[in-house]
Structure formats: C-alpha cells, structure tokens
C-alpha cells in the first residue's frame, strides 16, 4: 500500500529525486524545495520544448487547459510489482541533485548518476542538476552534452526560473516519450502481468485466458499513459474499451483498475470542480471499483498476494474524495470498512500505512477521537518493532493523540489556557455553578489517559527523549496518583529521576510533577499594614485615609473567598515580604524539593528559594519570602519548583480548580485532604502593588521591656527611641495619641522629634514621654474586669487600656530615584504605632478623711489674744506667716482655740515600698479680692514629712482655721448666701443648682489648696488624689470653716482698772499683784475692772443688746441668783450698743469675786433688726426670729488672799 493516495494519484508522473555525490542536507533540502514547487506543469508552457515527431496518439489533448502532474519521490523508491497494473506506480523519470562544490569531478558525477539510474529501468527521462558549479566546472560542463545540467550561480529568482524551464523541458520530453510508448504499445502490445496472475502453473487455458485478457489490459495501460500525459478524454476512451474487454474476459482486477482510471480521468476532465452529480457518479463508480477488487480476490494465492490493498486504497481514495463534514456518515462507513481490512493485510507496513491514512482522514473529518484511536493503533505497531526510530515515530504519533485524550503537555498551550479561561468564571461567584464545575473536568477519562501517558512514557524512554519521558511521568504522577499503587508511584519517581539524569541541569519542563502547592495566606508585617495613603494637599496628610492592609472595610464581606480577591497589598521596594504556601505530597515516597520559590513574572521581585522535604502522604505550610525590587505590580501565579531534577512552574489556579472538583466529587481526590490537611477557602492572590522605598521607623522604650509599672497617680518619664531602619530619610513626622487613658500621657516631646527631622536612614532619636498613672478606681469596667481576671495585683498591662502613640511619618514627596512626573502619585506615608504599656499598681491609698474640731477656752489677760483672722491682714506678711508655721501645730494657751477644726486624713500603704508623704496647704485668699498682695499670699505652708512604712497606715492633721475669712462682707457673702440660699426661703431668686455649684466652687477652692504629695524610692513620686475625700468630709460644716461670726467678743483686764484697784487697797500689795495679774490671775475680794471688746465683722453697723455671764466651775451662774458669789459694777446685761462696721467697741465693767476658783466669762448678744446677711449666716429661717451671737468662753482664775 502507499500512503497519501487519492483518486488523482493515477494521473501523476512519478519522478525519483536522488542526491548525486555528497550533498549537504541543508542544500539538499533547498534544492528539492526548489524542485517541488513545480509539481504541475501546464501543457501550454511546454509547447516550446515539444516537437511532434509523428502523429500524437493523444488526439484530444487539452493544450490550453491541461497539464502534467509530477509526484516527486525524494530519495527515490523501490520499484513496485504492480507497475504494469498502474503505470503511475512506475518511476518515469529520474532527477539527480548535485552540489558541485562538494563533488568537483563532473565526470564522476555523471557516472554516479548513470549508475543510480540503473535502479530505475522504467525511467524514460534522466536529468542531473548541478548547483553552484565553480567556473572550471562551468566551462567543462558547457563542453559536454548529455543530461548534466549546471545551474550557474546567480540570484534565487533566476535559479527558480532556470529550474522551471528545466522541469518544463523534462515534462515535454516525457510527453514525447509517452507518445512513443503508446504508439508502440498499440502496435506491438505487451504482456502485462501482476503478482495476482499465478506464475506457478501456466496451464494451457491459463495462457489462453491471459491472451484474451491482454488486449483489455493494454487498453487500460494506454489509458493510464493518456492520464499521465494529461489527456483525460483520450484516457477515458481507452478505459471504456478496456472495461468492455475486461468484463468480457472476467478480468475483474483490471476492470477495477480501469474503472479507477476512468474516474480519475473524469475528475481531471472536470478540473477538480465538484458538483453533486459528479460526486454521485464518482461514489457510484468507486463502490464498483471496491467491489470488483474484492471480487478479484483469489483464494489459492491469498496467503502470498491479494488485491486487498487495492481494495483498501480505493476505499481510502473514495473516503478522501468525500471527506467533508456533511458526508461524515459515509466517510465513517468507508473508513470503518477499511479498518476492518487491516487484520487481513499480510504486510505489517501496509497495516501501518492503512491506519495512518484512516487516522488522517478522520482527523480531516474533525473526528479527533477516532483519529487519536487509529494513531494509537499506529503507535502500537511502531512499538512492536523494536528499534529506536520506530520508538521515535511512536512517540510522535502518540503526542498527536494527547489532545483528543486531554492529556496534552502544557508545552502545547491549548490546555494551558484552560485554567485561565475558567478562572474568572468562578472567581466572581465564590462558589461555582455545578454544571460549570463539571465542564471544568470535562473528559476525565482516567483509564484511557493513564494508558496513553504510560505509552508515551515508554516510547519516549525507548526513543531516548528524557524530557518527553519526564513530562509524561510527571503528568501521570500528578494527575493519577490516587489510581497508582505506591509501588507504581515509586516507579514513576525513579523514572523521573532517571530521565532527569540524562537532562542538562536546569532543564525546565512545562508540566509540573509534585508537590501540589496552594496559596495559604499573606502574613502581614505591621510595617506593611501601617502604610498610609498620603494626601499631599493637606498638612495632616494621613487624615481620612485609613492604613491599607487588613483595615480596609469591604461592605460586601460575606466571608466568601472573593473578598480576599478584593484585598490589596502594598509592598515596599527593598523590604522583605513573606507568603505562606501549603505543599502536599500525597504519594508514598519521600519528596525532596531541591528548591521552591515564588514565581513572579512581573520581574520586579527577588524570590528566595528554600529547600523542603516532604515525607510520604504529608503536607506542610512553608513561608516563602522575597524582596520587591522595583515599583509596579506584582502578580504571583504560582511557585517555581526544582524537583526530580527539573524546574517546573506550579500554578495556584490549577490546584484551586482541582480542589473545586474534589469538593464536587468530580476529581479523583483532594491531595491536601488525603494528606490530612484541613480544607481552607482557596485564597486568590490579592492585588499587590510595589511602592518606592519608604522610611521605616522602629521604636523601642529605653530600658523598659514590657510594661511601665507605675503606682496610682505616679508621674514618671519614659524614653522612647525611634530609629529609621529604612533607606529613605523621614521628612515629616507627627505624633498623636490614641487608645484609652490618653490623659495618662502628660507630655510628649514633639519638639525633640521635629528638631531632628529629616531623620537620616540609620539615625536615631530619643524622646521623653511623661506619664501619669491613672487611678485604678477610675479605669473603665472592661479592664476592671480584666483586673479581677488578672488577680489582686491589678496589673493592667493589657493593650486595651494603655494609651498609644501614633507616629505618622513620610519620606520626601518625590523619591530621589525617579523624576516627579512619573511618580505623580505621592509615595504613601507610614504610621508607627507605639503602645505605651502602662501597668498601674495600687499605691498609697486614702482610707478616710474626717473633720475634727477642738475647743480650748482662752485665758483672760491684760491684752487680747491676737485674733487669728488678723493673720490675713496685709501688715508684716512674712513674719506672720513664719510665726504661723509653728502656730499651726502649737496652740497659744492664752488665745485658746475655739471652734478650731482639723482635717484628719488616714492613709495606708499596702505596697511593699516605703512612702513619704508631705501635706502642703496653699495660703491663697481667693475671696479677698481687694487684697493687692494675693499672689504673695500664695505661699505654701510645708508640713514636716510623714513616713509610712509598708503595710502601715498613718494620719495627717491639717488645721483649717486659716481659711476663715477676715470679713463677713457682702461681696463674698452674697455669694455665700446664694450658697446657702437653699435653706433660706427668701433667696428663691437663686436656682438651687447654681447655688450648689457656687458652694461647691468655694469648697473646691478650699480643697484645691490642700495637696498631698508622696514620694517613694528614688524617682517615683506622685500626688494622691484626696479631693473627693476632703469634699466629703467638709460638705457638712463648710460654712463654719469658711465664714467668721458676725460679732466676736474678747475679754481683757483693763489696766487702769487695775490701778484703780490698787488704790483701793495698799499700793505695795497692788504692786505685788500686778505681775500676778499680768499673769491673768485675779485676786478674790477685790474689784477687778475688765472690759469686753465687741468687734463687728460685717460691713454694716450692727445694733445689739448684749450681756455678760460669769459661771463657776459647776457652771452655775454666779452673778445673779440668791447665792451669787460674784459682785459686779457696771452693766452686765442688756447692754445695748452699736458697733460700726469692722470696728471694735469697748465696754467696761468690774467684777468682785467672793470665792477663789475657776470662773468662765461668756458674752452673748442679740442682734436687733439684722440684715439678710446676718440671717443667712445664722441660718435663721423666719425674719422675726432673733439672732443670737455668742463669743468664745474666757477662763478667769481667782486666787484667794492669804
């Protein structure tokens, strides 16, 4: 059988094309290509070369339209035993191709060619073309006649033209030869035999039979020549006679042959145009042809030779003729029939050719699976012959089938596109529609696919193509591992290793083997997360733009994978990044991954390879890192893996699809699942953009690891050092606070930071931050809960409650690298988050505050005790305050201290350190507005420090008398009456609220002057918040503390009175007594003059009636009553007087004590028609109710006389 036959074949003139002498392959290719271009020569062009010797047998040759067809057989071909039967099988001409430079001796060439031609007895024309001859050769050649034609060196075009004419010449001479042949055939006639005609027994009737048939066969052959001569009409004529004769002589085989010829003639005549009628005709005749060939099958010599191959060829010819989609049905039938013939073909190579042809035809029909099937048959035939070449052909043929079986290598990119085209379809909807999933895994016909891949593997191993072998093994292992026994898996692994050994190191293969790799996650360094979009327009450029990274808010985040795809990442040139991927090795052997790294096509990323070892059936999550090298976008389609000695790229998308199918139960298995790895939503690679280098600040708290531990209220500085770890200077930096307890940060040295800008790369700055510990009590409930959780220690170093320093900083607006215009988008800024971990410990605590009052009566003397209130007098300030310093603690016995109040603070120290506390009172008389020297008054009274040991408690007393106001004056008092307005019904004009507020204000004012500072250890010091406690303590009796009585009374012995007394008795005694009296003691039985000083503390005149009482120790009134022990002179009761504002009025009187002992003088007054102020002060409710005013008691010691 012959490959590539068609109906027209019978009209083609076979020309053997053979190299003469050594011809370099490339030249040979070149020359033959030049020749092959001229396979049809139209008759019109050859007329010039044609000379009609005698009457041409081709009477109706179409000189204008017809043509001769050549079939060039490169390298020639052995002569066929069927030459007589089909003349087109004869080699009718020989063309030699000679490369003159490589064979200088032309004679030798001629001889060689002549020799070669011997092999082709049927050849009617021989030519030898000599290309690019040397000059010597040229002239030598020009001398000689014969069939050596030299192509003088010249440009291509001329050569082509030359070649054209040469072929035309050949055509012409062939035509003339045909004529000769035909003429002599018609006259003489020849014996035409085919292998079918049995040589064995030439029985007589055999011979007769042969004789009978000769004519017909001759006619047929003549027809053949007519066809070759390009004259279909003549051919047809001869064929029809031949048919006639053949039918008569029952020469079926030749009948069929003639019929074939006639069909060919028909087609040639129609110039290849196809109309249904013609098609019908051809179909009809060819079916005859086929059936006659079948008829001509002769049993007796069947095993030696049979017309079967002709039958099949005919079938194929028809099939090729009809091969159109519309006629698929018939073509399929023909081809199927042809295929059936295969097994009865004797010659293996015939079978091979048959299958090849069938495969081709199915291919052209678009039946790729059919084509693949027969190609595979071919491959198997090749594999049966044990030699390398066959193996190679087998491999190539199988490679053609891979598409149909969907196992093609990625190298053929059709499959490569598959994942990408379905990529979006499901990326959008998170879940894929079922049907679309199914179609994704279209034609997973694993049984077949594995077989094919195995065959490819085997053949490529045999053919010695390690890469093909590797890729086949890889595909097998990767796609079908679940169907392969561990042993088989190992086999494939070794196959991979072996083939890789034959490959140069660093060979790449389009088909990945193991492991399976899926994207796991993108861990984000804080530095990445805190990149802030920069708004150059405004000073606070970070405002309004949240840091990118995980903080972006996506309204549609339904936990569907697609929202990860929305995610955007910003990487910075030169700052290393990490990506987590998960590897799985579902096979039964140890998988050694020599190196794996992220494969990035955008070329602006340096990936760092690592080495991984995966035990059998195991999966691993590994971290792959790299460094973005230049600005732009980074896309990470997958990983590049160096495994089994070959470099492959593993795309994440493929695995995602695979897992998808697994989830739907459409693929064999999920490699990760079967390695016991949990299923995770497939992460799609986020949009990654790389921005130019940015500065990178790193912070550390100097000398402080972990939380700063502070006692409540403690104030301390911490030092934060910032270093620029980036490659770009920090040009702007802004510090802001956020988080809870921001007020705990008293001050941050912004300026220090500002001053060092721009902060060069590598530079460092340290800025102090002053912290004040908050009150444990005041911390909000949630961390109070945390507190209880973290136990009694109350360490709240939880980030929750600590304040945070936010430092927004940026590099230069345009970075030095590229000109500003292309960096039109401003490089983003950054945010450094410095959490100030503060852990507040319970420190010194106030247990309670109480108000104590102390009453010690004064002793009467010549002069009044200095009223304390005078201290506020503006005279001789300094001395007074000095004297007061001790006065606070000491009490002048003569003065006594009436209604003096103390604030007692009880403090305890639960900690394990010693506290020193110091109370200080600020003497500032805010109420005394008209006092010029207020600021001077703002002197502080230091108290001696008190030391409180650990686990002890201590009390501190603070006298409050210094807060007494000098005057019960309107200006202040209005305020006060407001304060008091609540109780007095007449001051409804003032709303309770304001009045309360006012009161509180005045109290606060008072309280704020009392400070309690503590100190502990070297540097820890703070202030204890006692305000509330004091406030509580004072609330009740604040009036008495703040306000003086409207009237104050003071008794004293009057000197003149004393003198007068001296006159009464002996002067010397009196002399004696004077010092005694000066001591404030009084003699019994002696008239003692005294005076009471009444001072009006208000701004108005006060009218009043007052009286003086004298009581003895028993408290009995000893002035009135029946057994009075004291006589008196002057008025003691009902004394009416008017005291002008802020004036004193003296009232004198004398007492005569009958009995020595201790007496007490008290003055009391009833104020007449008092004003509001007084009422208010007295807290009197009704207007007509009298107002009493009572002075402090004065002691009088009366000494007996002798």
């Amino acid at each position: 059988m012959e490959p590539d036959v068609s109906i027209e074949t019978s009209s083609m003139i076979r020309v053997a094309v053979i190299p003469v002498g050594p011809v370099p392959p490339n030249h040979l290719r070149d020359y033959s290509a030049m020749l092959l271009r001229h396979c049809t020569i139209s008759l019109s062009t050859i007329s010039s070369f044609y000379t009609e010797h005698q009457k041409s047998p081709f009477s109706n040759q179409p000189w204008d339209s017809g043509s001769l067809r050549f079939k060039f057989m490169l390298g020639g071909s052995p002569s066929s035993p069927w030459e007589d039967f089909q003349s087109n099988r004869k080699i009718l001409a020989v063309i030699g191709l000679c490369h003159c430079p490589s064979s200088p001796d032309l004679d030798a060439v001629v001889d060689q060619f002549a020799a070669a031609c011997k092999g082709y007895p049927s050849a009617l024309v021989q030519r030898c073309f000599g290309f690019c001859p040397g000059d010597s050769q040229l002239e030598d050649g020009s001398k000689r006649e014969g069939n050596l034609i030299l192509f003088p060196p010249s440009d291509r075009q001329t050569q082509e033209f030359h070649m054209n004419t040469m072929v035309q010449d050949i055509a012409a001479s062939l035509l003339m030869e045909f004529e000769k042949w035909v003429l002599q055939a018609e006259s003489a006639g020849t014996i035409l035999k085919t292998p079918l005609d049995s040589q064995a027994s030439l029985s007589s009737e055999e011979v007769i039979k042969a004789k009978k048939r000769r004519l017909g066969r001759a006619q047929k052959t003549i027809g053949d020549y007519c066809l070759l001569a390009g004259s279909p009409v003549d051919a047809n004529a001869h064929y029809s006679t031949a048919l006639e004769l053949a039918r008569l002589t029952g020469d079926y085989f030749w009948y069929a042959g003639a019929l074939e010829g006639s069909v060919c003639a028909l087609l040639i005549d129609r110039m290849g145009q196809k109309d249904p009628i013609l098609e019908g005709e051809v179909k009809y005749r060819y079916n005859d042809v086929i059936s006659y060939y079948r008829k001509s099958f002769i049993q007796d010599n069947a095993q030696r030779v049979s017309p079967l191959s002709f039958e099949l060829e005919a079938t194929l010819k028809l099939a090729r003729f009809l091969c159109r989609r519309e006629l698929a049905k018939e073509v399929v039938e023909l081809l199927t029939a042809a295929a059936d013939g295969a097994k009865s073909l004797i010659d293996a190579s015939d079978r091979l050719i048959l299958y090849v042809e069938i495969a081709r035809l199915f291919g052209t029909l678009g039946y790729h699976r059919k084509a693949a099937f027969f190609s595979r048959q071919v491959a198997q035939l090749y594999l049966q012959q044990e030699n390398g070449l066959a193996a190679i052909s087998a491999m190539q043929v199988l490679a053609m089938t891979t598409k149909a079986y969907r196992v093609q290598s990625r190298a053929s990119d059709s499959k490569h596109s598959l994942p990408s085209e379905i990529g979006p379809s499901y990326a959008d909807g998170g879940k894929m529609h079922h049907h679309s999933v199914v179609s994704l895994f279209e034609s997973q016909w694993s049984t077949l696919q594995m077989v094919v891949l195995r065959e490819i593997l085997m053949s490529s191993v045999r053919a010695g193509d390690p890469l093909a072998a590797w890729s086949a093994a890889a595909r097998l292992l990767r796609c079908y591992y679940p169907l392969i026994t561990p042993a088989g898996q190992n086999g494939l692994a070794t196959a991979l290793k072996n083939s890789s050994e034959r490959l140069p190191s660093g060979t790449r293969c389009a088909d990945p083997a193991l492991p399976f790799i899926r994207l796991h996650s993108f861990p984000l360094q804080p530095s990445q997360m805190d990149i802030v979009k920069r708004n150059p327009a405004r000073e606070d450029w970070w405002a309004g733009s949240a840091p990118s990274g995980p903080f972006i808010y996506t309204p549609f985040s339904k936990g569907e994978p697609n929202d990860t795809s929305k995610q955007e990442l910003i990487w910075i040139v030169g700052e290393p990044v990490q990506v987590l991927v998960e590897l799985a090795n579902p096979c039964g052997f140890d998988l050694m991954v020599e190196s794996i790294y992220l494969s990035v096509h955008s070329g602006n990323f340096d990936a760092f390879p690592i080495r991984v070892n995966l035990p059998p059936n195991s999966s691993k999550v590994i971290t792959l890192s790299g460094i973005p090298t230049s600005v732009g976008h980074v896309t990470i389609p997958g990983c590049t893996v160096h495994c089994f000695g070959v470099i492959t790229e593993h795309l994440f998308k493929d695995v995602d699809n695979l897992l998808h199918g697994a989830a739907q139960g459409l693929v064999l298995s999920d490699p990760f699942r079967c390695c016991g790895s949990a299923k995770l939503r497939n992460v799609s690679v986020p949009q990654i953009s790389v921005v130019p280098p940015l500065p990178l600040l790193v912070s550390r708290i100097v000398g402080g690891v972990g939380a700063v531990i502070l006692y409540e209220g403690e104030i301390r500085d911490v030092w934060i050092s910032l270093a620029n770890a980036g490659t770009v200077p920090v040009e702007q930096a802004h510090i802001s606070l956020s988080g809870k307890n921001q007020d705990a940060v008293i001050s941050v040295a912004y300026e220090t930071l500002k001053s060092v800008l721009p902060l060069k790369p590598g530079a460092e700055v340290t800025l102090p931050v002053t912290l004040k510990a908050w009150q444990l009590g005041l911390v909000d409930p949630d961390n109070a809960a945390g507190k209880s959780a973290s136990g009694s220690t109350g360490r709240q170093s939880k980030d929750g409650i600590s304040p945070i320093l936010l430092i927004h900083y940026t590099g230069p607006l345009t970075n030095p690298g590229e000109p500003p215009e292309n960096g039109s988008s401003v490089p983003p800024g950054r945010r450094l988050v410095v959490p100030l971990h503060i852990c507040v410990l319970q420190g010194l605590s106030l247990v309670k505050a109480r108000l104590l009052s102390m009453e010690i009566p004064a002793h009467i003397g010549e002069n009044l005790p200095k009223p304390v209130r005078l201290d506020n007098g503006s005279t001789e300030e300094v001395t007074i305050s000095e004297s007061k310093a001790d006065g606070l603690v000491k009490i002048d016995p003569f003065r006594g201290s009436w209604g003096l109040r103390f604030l007692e603070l009880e403090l305890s120290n639960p900690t394990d350190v010693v506290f020193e506390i110091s109370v200080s009172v600020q003497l500032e008389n805010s109420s005394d507005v008209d006092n010029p020297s207020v600021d001077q008054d703002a002197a502080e009274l230091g108290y001696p420090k008190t030391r409180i040991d650990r686990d002890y408690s201590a009390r501190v007393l603070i006298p409050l008398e210094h807060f007494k106001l000098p005057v019960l004056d309107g200006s202040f008092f209005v305020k006060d009456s407001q304060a008091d307005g609540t109780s007095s019904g007449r001051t409804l004009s003032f709303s309770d609220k304001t009045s309360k507020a006012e009161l509180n204000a005045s109290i606060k004012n008072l309280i704020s002057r009392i400070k309690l500072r503590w100190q502990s250890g070297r540097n820890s010091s703070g202030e204890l918040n006692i305000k509330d406690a004091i406030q509580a303590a004072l609330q009740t009796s604040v009036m008495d503390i703040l306000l003086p009585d409207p009237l104050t009374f003071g008794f004293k012995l009057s000197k003149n009175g004393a003198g007068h007394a001296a006159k009464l008795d002996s002067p010397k005694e009196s002399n004696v007594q004077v010092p005694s009296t000066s001591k404030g003691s009084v003699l019994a039985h002696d008239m003692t003059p005294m005076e009471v000083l009444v001072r009006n503390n208000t701004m108005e005149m006060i009218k009043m009636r007052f009286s003086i009482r004298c009581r003895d120790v028993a408290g009995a009134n000893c002035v009135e009553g029946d057994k009075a022990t004291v006589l008196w002179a002057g008025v003691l009761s009902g004394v009416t007087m008017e005291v002008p504002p802020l004036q004193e009025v003296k009232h004198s009187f004398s007492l005569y004590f009958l009995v020595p002992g201790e007496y007490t003088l008290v003055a009391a007054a009833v104020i007449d028609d008092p004003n509001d102020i007084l009422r208010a002060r007295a807290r009197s409710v009704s207007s007509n109710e009298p107002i009493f005013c009572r002075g402090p008691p004065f002691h009088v010691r009366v000494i007996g006389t002798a």
Partner: protein
Amino acid sequence: MIGVGKIKQYSNVLDKPLSKGKQEVSLSAFAFLFSELVQYNQAQVDNIAELERRLEDAGYAVGARVLELLCHRDKGNRRETRLLGILSFVHSTVWKVLFGKVADSLEKGTEHEDEYMISEKELLVNRFISIPKDMGTFNCGAFVAGIVRGVLDSAGFPAVVTAHFVPMEGQQRPRTTILIKFAEEVLRREARLG
C-alpha cells in the same frame, strides 16, 4: 405513591417505580418552601444579580432532571433534536407538568434570530412573592429561567435564559417573560440539520 396511605417499603430507591407525576402537594406548601429558598439565598449574596444567579442555579438542577424524567415518561423516550421541538417541549410538556398548565405564550424574538420568549401572565413562583421596592428588578422567575436553562442546556441547546417583568396595559401586575437566547453553536447546528 404520595398520599395513598400505606405503601410498601423498598429496599432501595432504585426498586421504587418512577412516579406517574400525578401526586400533588398544596400550593402553599410549595410557596412556603420557595420563599425560604429565596430568603436563604438573599442572605448569601450582596447584590440582585448574584441572587438571581443562585436561584437560576437552583432551577437549573431541577430542569436538568425534569428533562430526563419527562422525555422518558411523557414523551416515550423521544429526544428533542430540533430547536422548535425543544422549545415547545418546554412550553407545553414541562410547563404542564410543573405548573399544571401550558405556558401562556411562546414567541420568537422580533429583532434577534436567536431569541425566544415564553410568557406567563402570572408565573407560579411570582404569585405569592411580592418584591420589596429596594430589590428593584429582581424577579423570582430567575428560578424558572434556571429550570428552562437546565432543560435546554441538558438537551444540548445551550442558551442564556433570563426572567423579566413586562408591564401589561390593563393589568396591575406585570407578566413574566422568560427570555431565551441560544448560543450560536445551536443555530449553526440547526442550519446544518436543515
């Protein structure tokens, strides 16, 4: 065998004969179920398009099965190989079985060769569903569209099928039109089959 009280047990569903398609459940039972389907999917999506896609997806699963079942049971194992055949199959057979009536109309798209429309004055699934204003053009018919697509696609007539409300003069409720746009491969094949 639904509603026929005591029925014999089958060792396996494959032993159970195919139903004759005569059994029924109350419309409201279906209504309740369907509204749950809609509500569930509504909770899964961000936008109307996605919701419709999911309903269509659900419908598709129904359609694919209905085709196989009905061709076997109601069409005596005849396949529809021609475009008009399959369309009328959908319009009459499928509709009759699923919705108890033949579809109101089956028309060919006027401007496009490859478009066909099946219209219902009141599509079953839209009878008991009222679309909240904020859901705009959302049409539960997407489910039915899915069924249709399931039938067509499985039968080898891939098409894009969508449901639309078409306001009708003289009626307060718009009718629902199932718009079918066939893939060109279908038309090409039709042409070839002549």
